[in-house]
């Protein structure tokens, strides 16, 4: 079917400005991804899946410029922990600033350098392709085709230290496309941390294949730069008795669309996807989540909390699809917003689609202001209004933050949130 003219023109223009990397072993996957982008077209304002978020700046030929924020009032996120640090500056791997790419229990390589015969060949673009049905995600296919850098991480054991991907944004006009592949083999376990703004415009895909009995933990703190834009996808495939937990904190950013597309393919697996965002003014944050239960006795949790003020917009599109035969599914989904004033808005589209009869799925969505009774109670005990509001705000996102297993990371997240609130109080 031919694409609508507007979409065709926009897609052609964007593709004309990019060139397919040579890619070695990844070349076939890239060519197939390019063909898929050409067939689907890039997202347009009329697409149902982009009803609440305008894609135009994400698909434009050039990245809209975004001023670099030099953070001097806060210690670097995750900076104090023992970890393997990998730095990308405006989307380019920096060997100088990164640790040696070696850690017990895993191998780690650059996508841009990986040699010709490669384990990632079967995975690169595969989970992304699977994630294109039933809903199309053209920006992810675009990423598979044109990603210029990224990491290929293969986890064979229980890795003690987290791998920390630190993104830095140094150029006002940088336009980064990164693609990471993580394969956690049977019995393996790894924690992936990500922080920073990456680029003026960032398109990122992570494909994570979690084998039977393996575990994947992911904590991400997206950069504070006010004008940056990001479209990210995390695709996950879970084997039997495996665990996948991801949490994202977003503070600031003019536009963020975070998609999580997870498929539970082995029995007794569990996926938890959580996020908290803090935004004010020109801030648009979209969490789009799609969880497919295709095995027995799996658990999925989606927990999203958005704190919005001063005209900010929050979006949540979350779906749980329970396929025929996926009995004993335990699905939970909650999306909530705390509107600190009347100018802000939260748009939520929770969806359940269930084709098995023995399942328990619940979902809810709420939008509200600070609880006045709680506020008065705190103040009556001597807690000043501002501090009381901060406490209640941090309490509001607690359910999402608690999805992070490491309590010291939870604390770090809460401190970032408190600092964000503090800056707004001046």
């Amino acid at each position: 079917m031919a694409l609508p003219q507007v979409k065709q023109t926009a897609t052609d223009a964007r593709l004309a400005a990019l060139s397919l990397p040579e890619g070695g072993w990844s070349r076939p996957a890239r060519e197939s991804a390019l063909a898929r982008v050409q067939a689907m077209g890039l997202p347009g304002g009329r697409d149902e899946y982009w009803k609440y978020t305008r894609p135009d700046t994400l698909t434009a030929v050039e990245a809209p410029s975004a001023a670099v924020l030099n953070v001097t009032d806060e210690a670097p996120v995750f900076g104090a922990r023992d970890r393997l640090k990998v730095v990308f500056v405006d989307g380019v791997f920096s060997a100088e600033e990164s640790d040696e790419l070696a850690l017990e229990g895993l191998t780690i390589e650059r996508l841009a350098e990986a040699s010709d015969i490669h384990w990632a060949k079967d995975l690169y673009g595969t989970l992304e392709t699977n994630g294109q049905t039933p809903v199309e995600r053209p920006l992810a296919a675009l990423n598979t085709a044109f990603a210029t850098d990224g990491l290929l991480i293969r986890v064979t054991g229980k890795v003690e230290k987290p791998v920390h991907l630190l993104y830095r944004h140094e150029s006002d006009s940088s336009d980064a496309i990164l693609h990471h592949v993580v394969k956690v083999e049977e019995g393996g376990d790894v924690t992936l941390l990500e922080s920073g703004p990456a680029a003026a415009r960032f398109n990122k895909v992570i494909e994570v294949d979690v084998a039977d009995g393996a575990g994947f933990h992911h904590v991400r703190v997206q950069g504070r730069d006010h004008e940056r834009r990001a479209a990210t996808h995390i695709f996950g495939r879970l084997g039997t008795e495996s665990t996948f937990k991801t949490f994202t904190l977003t503070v600031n950013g003019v536009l963020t669309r975070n998609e999580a597309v997870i498929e539970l393919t082995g029995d007794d697996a569990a996926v938890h996807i959580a996020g908290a965002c803090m935004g004010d003014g020109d801030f648009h944050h979209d969490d789009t989540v799609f969880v497919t239960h295709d095995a027995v006795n799996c658990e999925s949790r989606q927990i999203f909390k958005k704190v919005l003020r001063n005209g900010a917009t929050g979006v949540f599109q979350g779906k749980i699809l329970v396929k025929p035969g996926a009995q004993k599914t335990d699905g939970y989904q909650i999306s909530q917003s705390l509107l600190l004033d009347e100018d802000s808005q939260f748009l939520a589209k929770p969806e359940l689609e269930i084709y098995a009869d023995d399942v328990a799925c619940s979902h809810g969505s709420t939008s509200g202001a600070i609880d006045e009774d709680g506020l008065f109670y705190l103040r009556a005990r001597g807690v000043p209004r501002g501090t009381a509001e901060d406490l209640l705000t941090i309490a509001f996102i607690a359910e999402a933050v608690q999805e992070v297993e490491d309590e010291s990371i939870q604390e770090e997240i809460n401190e970032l949130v408190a600092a964000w609130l503090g800056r707004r109080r001046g």
Partner: protein
Amino acid sequence: MLEIKNLQVKLEEEDKQILKGVDLTVEAGKVHAIMGPNGSGKSTLSYVLSGKDGYEVTGGAATLEGQDILEMEPEERAAAGLFLAFQYPVEIPGVGNMTFLRTAVNAQRKARGEEEMSSTEFLKVVREKAKSLKIDAEMLKRPVNVGFSGGEKKRNEILQMAMLEPKMCILDETDSGLDVDAMKLVADGVNALRGEGRSFLVITHYQRLLDHIKPDVVHIMANGRIIKTGGPELALEVENNGYADLIEEEA
């Protein structure tokens, strides 16, 4: 300590006068009790004194140690030494009881220009006080009042009072929902704080609490006014005869 003069209060949202001229003086170190029928305005008085939104003071005054409190923010009143044990303690999901207590103690200290309590000292004090109120460590970890039983909530109020060491304590039906043993615990908690010039205003429906916390003065409130003031014997009279006679007398 607390001086209330001809206090008149209406609801902000509707044209309903609730307090119609309350006069009440609690001297330093004294325990006063207020009894009165449901809906007579006892809780409203306690809320207005502690600064809750939604009420409009249309006349009169209230001072704490000579300071006009009606103009102050709720947190300023707390730092000045006013404490209200709520009739219905509020649940705050996501805020741990310990965090809450420490934040409150240190906020008040800071407001008074005192040094903050170190976390070790705080832990020691809170454990000791919690123990005497039979509040276990697990309850201290849980979010404020969430999932607490009625009686646990009331004991938690007294723990907060014990930690904050206010000068003027208002207890709004702290005895309701307490079993006999818990009532004794709470009364012991209050009695332990008596003295040192600390004053209490105890709102209750039952003589029983007053057996444990002997009041110096008993007031009867009806229809937004104090209609009678007397000694402890007044509470007994209410217990035996109800309010009908007293209200008739007044009319």
